[in-house]
């Protein structure tokens, strides 16, 4: 019938299309993509080839925009669609409505493509990564307000007394979620309220986590003015957001732990430095003390200027001592509080184990023990302070001893034998000096043995009131 009929071109093509439509629609063709081009309107033109054979394909813009990955030359695909003859050209083509890569899944391929593209752009570059601030105290969180991830993160962050948290809620799954996450990131970044941002989400399938593979999220992370920590899914899940973030945490919980750890490390450094300051100062004081004792030995007289210098330093130390000690005690107290807080946390952490009562009582024991150590340390410090003050030359004078030199001399007098009547002496007491004249020398009055108790009397008799000052030196 058809052979006898004369066809117009259009009618023939239309007839063929009817036949093709009834027998060749909704079919899937396997082949390698080649010659991809995209029209201004978004239609995709390409060919599928297999050996020598080649099939023209077209994907209209409405279908092409639903493809999850980019068509690339050389890609092995399964294309689903209908065969038609293009009326204007009379060309045979497959109108593709769906396309799947062979081997990898579409999402996986899309992920690889996005990763390659952003990598080429340099968005994942190590040089772009910003370090976590030393004091990440104001923490922004972008996540679902109702998700378990938020709860997990807060649980960790709340362990620390000095962390302020600002949550920017966003849907983290499904249509429009990427835009919400990007907007929340931008809002937090612009708020000036945070030092660091965590982008977090609990575990899920590749599809569930897809939001974090979207370009808009990656771009929002890249331009965020403060460092971003990504804590998405589980350990094994790597998203584009993970690659873009300044720091990648395996999970939301770990992201929070990174922050707490950093804060504790900074605190530890400060406390450690403080403790070492105390130790080092003590070491220097002990050194000075050793020098003082050495100066008081047999060669001491020859080193009076040195002795005076050391004594002066000791006085300076004694003056500042209460302040220094207070600092040291306060620092010990601070550490005690931190240790106590850490211990109090313990039962909560292991409560699930059912041993919380036991742990509770152990905690009390430990706290008491530590308290005892601190009290002991405090007592030791205070008693050393007293001992040190008693050693100071000024205290010695306060206790009623005095130092006598020949007028104009610097060496303390130790024996009476060299004195002559009429010589002038200068005696230093705790609150002034006295000038006196030698009236008479009584020989044999040494500083040792049973005569020592007569010291004051002896000394008194040695002196006549020189009258230069109003001190009553004879009383001692």
């Amino acid at each position: 019938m058809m052979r006898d009929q004369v066809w117009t071109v259009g009618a023939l093509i239309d007839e063929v299309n009817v036949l093709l439509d009834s027998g060749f629609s909704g079919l899937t063709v396997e082949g390698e993509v080649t010659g991809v081009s995209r029209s201004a309107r978004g239609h995709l033109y390409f060919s599928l080839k297999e050996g020598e054979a080649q099939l023209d394909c077209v994907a209209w813009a409405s279908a092409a925009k639903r493809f999850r990955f980019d068509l690339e030359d050389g890609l092995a695909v399964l294309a689903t669609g209908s065969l038609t003859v293009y009326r204007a050209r009379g060309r045979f083509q497959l109108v593709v409505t769906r396309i799947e890569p062979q081997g990898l899944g579409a999402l996986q391929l899309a992920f690889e493509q996005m990763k390659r593209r952003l990598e080429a752009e340099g968005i994942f570059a190590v040089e772009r990564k910003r370090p976590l601030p030393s004091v990440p105290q104001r923490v922004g969180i972008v996540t679902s307000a109702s998700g378990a991830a938020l709860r997990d993160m807060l649980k960790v962050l709340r362990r620390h007394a000095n962390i302020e948290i600002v949550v920017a809620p966003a849907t983290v799954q499904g249509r429009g979620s990427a835009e919400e996450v990007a907007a929340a990131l931008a809002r937090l970044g612009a708020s000036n309220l945070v030092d660091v941002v965590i982008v977090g989400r609990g575990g899920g399938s590749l599809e569930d986590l897809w939001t974090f593979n979207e370009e808009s999220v990656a771009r929002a992370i890249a331009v965020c003015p403060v460092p971003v920590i990504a804590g998405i899914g589980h350990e094994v899940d790597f998203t584009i957001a993970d690659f873009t973030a300044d720091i990648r945490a395996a999970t939301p919980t770990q992201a929070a732990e990174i922050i707490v750890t950093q804060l504790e490390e900074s605190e530890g450094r400060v406390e450690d430095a403080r403790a070492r300051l105390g130790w080092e100062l003590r070491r220097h004081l002990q050194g000075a003390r050793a020098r003082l004792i050495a100066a008081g030995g047999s060669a001491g007289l020859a080193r009076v200027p040195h002795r005076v210098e050391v004594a002066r330093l000791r006085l300076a130390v004694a003056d500042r001592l209460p302040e220094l000690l207070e600092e040291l005690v306060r620092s010990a107290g601070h550490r005690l509080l931190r240790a106590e807080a850490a211990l109090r946390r313990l039962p909560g952490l292991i409560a699930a184990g059912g041993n919380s009562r036991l742990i509770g009582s152990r905690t009390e024991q430990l706290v008491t023990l530590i308290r005892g150590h601190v009290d002991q340390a405090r007592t030791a410090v205070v008693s050393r302070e007293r001992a040190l003050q008693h050693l100071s030359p000024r205290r010695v004078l306060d206790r009623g001893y005095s130092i006598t030199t020949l007028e104009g001399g610097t060496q303390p007098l130790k024996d009476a034998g060299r004195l002559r009547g009429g010589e002038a002496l200068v005696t230093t007491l705790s609150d002034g000096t006295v000038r006196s004249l030698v009236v008479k020398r009584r020989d044999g009055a040494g500083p040792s043995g049973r005569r020592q108790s007569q010291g004051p009397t002896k000394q008194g008799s040695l002196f006549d009131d020189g009258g230069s000052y109003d001190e009553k030196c004879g009383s001692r």
Partner: protein
Amino acid sequence: MTKNVEVVEADDRFEDQLERLEDIVGRLEDDTVGLEQALDLFEQGMSLAGKCRSRLERVEQRVSKLLEAGTTEEMDIETS
């Protein structure tokens, strides 16, 4: 007493202050430093440590929600 402490600005970065503090501790470890200088170093160190510590205690625990307008409101979430 030297006045190095005065050079420390209030808005100095924590990291800088901490590094200066650790540097002072290092200098104090040197045995050739005299007692007078040791006291000065100690005081400078204590002052820096105090600043570092107050920086670490700058904020108190709080959870708030960032609203569309850029303002925040208290957020109450039970985590235990």
